[in-house]
């Protein structure tokens, strides 16, 4: 279980507070107006930003001071998820060994995970030779291999078309199901939140609210969410 306990993030001009917990296996969308602090929230959980107050706990264990790479999570950014100078296989292999010392067995697992995300035989390609959707698939193949219990997605498919986004969301759900991971996904689009199913964390007015069931939230949105969604 992920717990944000009395969290306060101070970025000078803007302060974000959060006091919430996310049950294991939850798929939570993180929605809210731009600039409200959705990405900031993920940065704190991932360990890129230190909170001014409060703690981030995983299964009751305090993650404060732990390096991003050591935390029990994988993160997919909006872009720059792959190193352009490394092959697809090496980019995925980094998920098994950060120093890329890969055994024959490891290489086989890399190939397997690539096959799983629909990129069979693309091990030797460079990121520059792939399409936007394929880049996302490589990043998800790595998430699959790392098999960490928490999956953070920071608007990873914002640059893709609607149909492709749908495919990617399905893949995210498959990966999450296979690894049993809890998912936190930042998105701009309420349709993505609904497609993800599960729950939604609303970030607005300097506060990240506890997750509630997505369908219920959109059925009867609070004023701040109504303003954000606009007239239908």
């Amino acid at each position, binding site marked *: 279980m992920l717990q944000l306990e009395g969290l306060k993030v101070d970025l000078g001009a803007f302060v974000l507070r959060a006091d919430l917990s996310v049950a294991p296996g939850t798929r939570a969308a993180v929605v809210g107006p731009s600039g409200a602090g959705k990405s900031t929230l993920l940065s704190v959980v*991932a*360990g*890129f930003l230190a909170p001014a107050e409060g703690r981030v706990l995983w299964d009751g264990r305090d993650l404060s001071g732990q*390096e*991003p*790479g*050591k935390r029990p999570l*994988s*993160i997919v*950014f909006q872009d*720059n*998820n*792959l*190193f352009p*100078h*490394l092959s697809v296989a*090496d980019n995925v292999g*980094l*998920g098994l060994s*950060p*120093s*890329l010392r890969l055994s024959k067995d490891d290489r086989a697992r890399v190939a397997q995970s690539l096959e799983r995300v629909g990129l069979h035989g693309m091990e030797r390609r*460079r990121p520059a030779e792939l399409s936007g959707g394929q880049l996302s698939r490589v990043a998800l193949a790595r998430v699959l291999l790392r098999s960490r219990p928490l999956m953070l997605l920071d608007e990873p498919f914002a640059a893709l078309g609607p149909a492709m986004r749908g495919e990617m969301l399905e893949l995210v759900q498959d990966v999450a199901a296979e690894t049993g991971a809890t998912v936190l996904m930042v998105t701009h689009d309420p349709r993505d939140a609904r497609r993800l199913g599960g729950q939604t964390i609303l970030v607005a007015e300097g506060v990240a609210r506890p997750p509630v069931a997505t369908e219920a939230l959109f059925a009867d949105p609070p004023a701040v969410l109504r303003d954000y969604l606009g007239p239908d």
Partner: protein
Amino acid sequence: MAGRIGPVARVAGGAAAVLVAALTLGTLVAVAMRAEDAPQLGPADFAAIRFTMLQATLSALFSVALAIPVARALARRSFPGRGLLVTLLGAPFILPVIVAVLGLLAVFGRNGLISQGLMLLGFEPVHIYGLHGVVLAHVFFNLPLATRLILQGWLAIPAERFRLAASLGLSPRDVARTLEWPMLRAVLPGAALVIFLICTTSFAVALALGGGPRGTTVELAIYQAFRFEFDLGSAALLSLIQFAICATAALAVWWVDLPAGFGGGLGRVTERWAISGPGLRALDALAIGLAALFLLTPLAMIVAEGIPRLADLPASVISATGRSFAVALSAAVLTIVLALSLATLALGTRGWKTGAVEALAVLSIAVSPLVIGTGLFLVIYPFADPISLALPITALVNALMSLPFAYRALAPALAEAETVHGRLADSLGMRGWARLKHLILPRLMRPLGFAAGLAAALSMGDLGVIALFANPEQATLPMEMYGLMASFRMEQASSAALLLLVCSMGLFWVFDRGGRVRAAT
């Protein structure tokens, strides 16, 4: 994340900072302590100071003044070979000084092309040794630099301004007054000061072309006090004076906001109007033609005179070449290690500490190699024989002199790699050696190749601190070549010069090219 670097990187950065500080500031302290019991400055020392200032001033003025018409012509004329010529203007930076001197002698010397022509016509041959020879060589090296700096200023004037001027019917004279003169007023002082600074530390040119007591720079006087009189007190005192001159000039350069000299983007030509008159065209053609002739003829002479005897170079030249390669490659590796360590440290610190690391990385611009050499000798002398360490010391000092350029090439690229890919590397737990190998080095291939090439080429052609320390058995190729010149074995010297030219340019080309090819994948 910036602000968080591993313990190994911190130690490496700290060690690099301490080493650079010890070599620059530490040697200065050693020199200052020794200078206390030095005799008073003699008339010869004052003459050296006067000569240093005079030749540096003249060199800066002539270089800048002659560069203005060349830069103006390059800025407004497009012609076949323009790109090649602009690239060649960058070449003197890595051209071994002693090679250029021999080339200039082949053109302007007593038996040079010009003297032979004059004698055919019944005139006296020209004399190159002395003030005018030193200034001539400095203009040869710095005219291209000045041209590049001023050309940058010209190309920074927005094309729309020239279009507006044309629409208002401004004549070339009016354009010069309203657009070009204000730009020159901003660019020229910086360019002149940079060249002044470079010329104040002139050693090899003064050594080869300065004539006797009235043609001695401070740097050369240090060498003479050290080498011929073994008067360490005087050498130390002169070193302090040299440092004062350099530091003052460097502060002035800092203050006038130096234009960036190694930037690219000199490939385009601003479209201009009302410049197609035959007079202006002839003027521009003349400027470019004369500049190309002045810069290329000495190099062509090196090639022409060097080739015939290249096959039977003495064995001493061959073994000197081997030593030079060892020194150059060591200096290149050391430069890269120092620059990367300092750049990483600068990225991991904040506030005044970052400023201090950056200042340390470029500090050696203000310190002359012979001052460092004198200081090192004073420090090492009580414990070991500095002569036996001549080659390692040369590599070390060479690396230090290349450090500012390597740092300026690497630090921005490192910062960019960390900004764009640092978070991903953090999230995957890539640290230490794994991060260096799989993120930093691959992303930095291009500037790494450039910096290593620059350091290797500069070290290969350096005739400075090695002259202070080495005995003939340890001579590097530039020193061996100077020895051949000094004993008037000019044909062998020409062949050695050609070999040195090929080695220096080749080293730069191989590294720079290697970096580009690897970066492309």
